[in-house]
Every structure is written in C-alpha cells, then in structure tokens.
C-alpha cells in the first residue's frame, strides 16, 4: 500500500495527520506547460512537484495576499 493509498479521501482533499494531498485538476494544455517547466529543471520532476513549487514561491513572494492565520481568522 502506498502512502497515498493509506490516506483518507475527503472530497478533493486526501488528509493525514502530517500532510495532506490536494487534487488539482488541469487539462492537457496545462500539462504540456508543466512538462516544459519540468524540462527546464529546478521546480520538480512531476506535475505535482512543479505545482507545489510554484504555489510555495507565490506565497513567499506575496505575503500581502495572505489572510489571517487559522486561529486569528477564527477570532476575527
């Protein structure tokens, strides 16, 4: 059983205690673009790794676009 198999699917999100896997839907054109990024190197070797790299970089580059953290949001 793979790690993913062991996770519990919940809607579009597979959850575990330490990490979760989100499912991002893309089409074949977007997949081609991801293939180009993989070929360039530096962002990962799978579509999932490349999307994760871009997502993380976006968040690092745009702290202004991040809302309040969970507990803070709950209090707001």
């Amino acid at each position, binding site marked *: 059983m793979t790690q*993913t198999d062991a996770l519990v699917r919940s*809607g*579009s*999100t*597979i959850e575990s205690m*330490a*990490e*979760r*896997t*989100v*499912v*991002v*839907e*893309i*089409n*074949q*054109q977007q*997949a081609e*673009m*991801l293939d180009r*990024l993989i070929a360039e190197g530096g962002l990962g070797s799978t*579509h*999932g790794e490349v*999307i*994760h790299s*871009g*997502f*993380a*970089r*976006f*968040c690092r*580059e*745009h702290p202004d*676009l*991040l*809302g*309040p*953290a*969970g507990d803070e*949001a709950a209090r707001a």
Partner: protein
Amino acid sequence: MSAREVVFEHVMEPGTGKAVPVLRGQILRIEQVGNGQCADFNAFNLHDYKEYFHCGRTRHLHGLFPAEGDMLWSAPPRERPMFTIISDSVGTNDIQYPRCTGFLYEYQFGFEQHTNCHDILAESIREYGLTPDDVHDSFNFWMHTGVDDEGKLYIKRLLARQGDYVELMAHFDTLAVPNVCGADIFSTSNFELKPLKVQVLDSTTDDRDQWLQPEERQFRNQRTPDDFKVKDIKVTRELVPDESYTPDWPVYPIVKQPVEVTLSDEDAELVEQLRAKGGFGESDGDIVRHAFFSWWIEHYMRGPKQHHAGE
C-alpha cells in the same frame, strides 16, 4: 539615405479623408494644421485587404492610450505589427471609442446628415474598391479620453496644437486611411473641425535600424490565408450551411486530469490564509491552482500581465 524624403503630401480638409499606400519602411506623418483636430485612422494590408488594423489586440498589448513606441496590430488571426508610433509630440490617443457614424448623430442629436468618420473612411477607401462594410474600429489620434470611477468613458478637450504630429513606420505594405474626425458637437476636436496634413516619407537607415520589425512572421500563429481551411474570399452575401461540413476543432476534446499535490502543514496553513484573503477560489485544489498559475504568469508570461492575483 541621410534625410527623410517626402514622397506624398496632402491636406485633408474637414469632412474628408485620404487612403494612401504606405510601404514597408515608409513613414506616415499626420500633422495639425490648426489647433486641436482628432484624426480617425483605418489601415489595411495593401496586398490583402482582409488583413486590417485591430483596436482590440492593440489595446490588449499597449493599454488604453497607446503612444510613442507602441505598435498598431492587425486583426486575428493575422496579428502582426502593422505600424510603430515612432514619434508622437502630444501622447494622447484613444482606442476605446468607436468611429462616429451617421446613426450616432441621428439617434443622439436628430441630424439627418452630419459629418461622421465612418462615412468619410468609407468614401476614402472606395478609391480602392472597398465598401462601407470594410471600415473597422478606428485608432483615434489625439482624441483625449479617460475612464471615470464608474468605468464609463468620457472625452476631454483635445490638447494638440498647430504643428503637433504623429509619425508611424509601416512594417509591411499598407493602405493607410486617416480622416478628419467629423465630430464637431463633442469636445473630440474642441467643437471645431480643422484640416490635417498627411505626408508619406521615405525613412532613413537610422529610422529603419531603430524601428523596423522583421517582415517575416515571428510566430506560427500569426496566420496567413495559406493556413485557412477556406482560402477564398466569399463572394455572395447569403449565408447557407455547407452540407459536407464536419467540425474540426483545433484542440478538442479538452481532457481534465487530476494532479495530486502534497502539502505540508505549513502549506496547508498558507491555503487557509489565501482562502481567508479571498479571490483564490473555493476548494483547496482551486486555491493551489490559482496561486500556482498566478506565479507562473508573473514569471513566464511575455507582454502585459493583466492579472491581479487574488482579485
């Protein structure tokens, strides 16, 4: 060539326009004779009139008020630079407003007959066998416009004075069609119609070195009729279906595929923060995809981004 040579000169009187060939590397110069006159402008490929100027692509690539250094593009699917504005002594031009028409003056003001850019452009291109249906959305030189807080367009007093000018270098052989805008009851030309001088000049080597774009297509999707499934121009007005037609879509079907993206607890918190900020979508997958593509646009997209992440 050390100096530009004038190969054509014409003064357009109010109520008139002029269709004039401007060949690759030549310069079209339009100059204010009086103080403050808008010039509407159409343009065609001199060797294939179905390729013509397109406000939409020009607006998309250069914004609402193109000026010196910006280019005038032909319509999809050709999408080539037709001209570059190599000099603009004022810098107020418009590509939002459509050409004024006879209908506009009748509907809004009750004129049965009034000078209007559509009819003037149509009469200008009739010299080359073109029809009123071949007139297209105009580039409006010197038209001084704005967008108000509610997103509505408005017209301001025109700023150009006698001697002000624009110069455009043609990147392929064109038929350029400027006209004296017929709007004398808007502030488009400060409520008075005035002549405009039109010149075509041979450019210098320095001009061409600085501005001239390559003649050949730079992208395979800058298409020509050779790329079309129907290569001939339709000669009848009636539209009837082709009984043998079966669709042949360029990209079809669009097939979705799931990509699993593993998030750490820290990543998951970032997803929650983007969700709290709003504008990134509903599901976790939507939010991660929106953030990823926003990053990709910022780093990889050529040309104006026109994307505000999180809005």
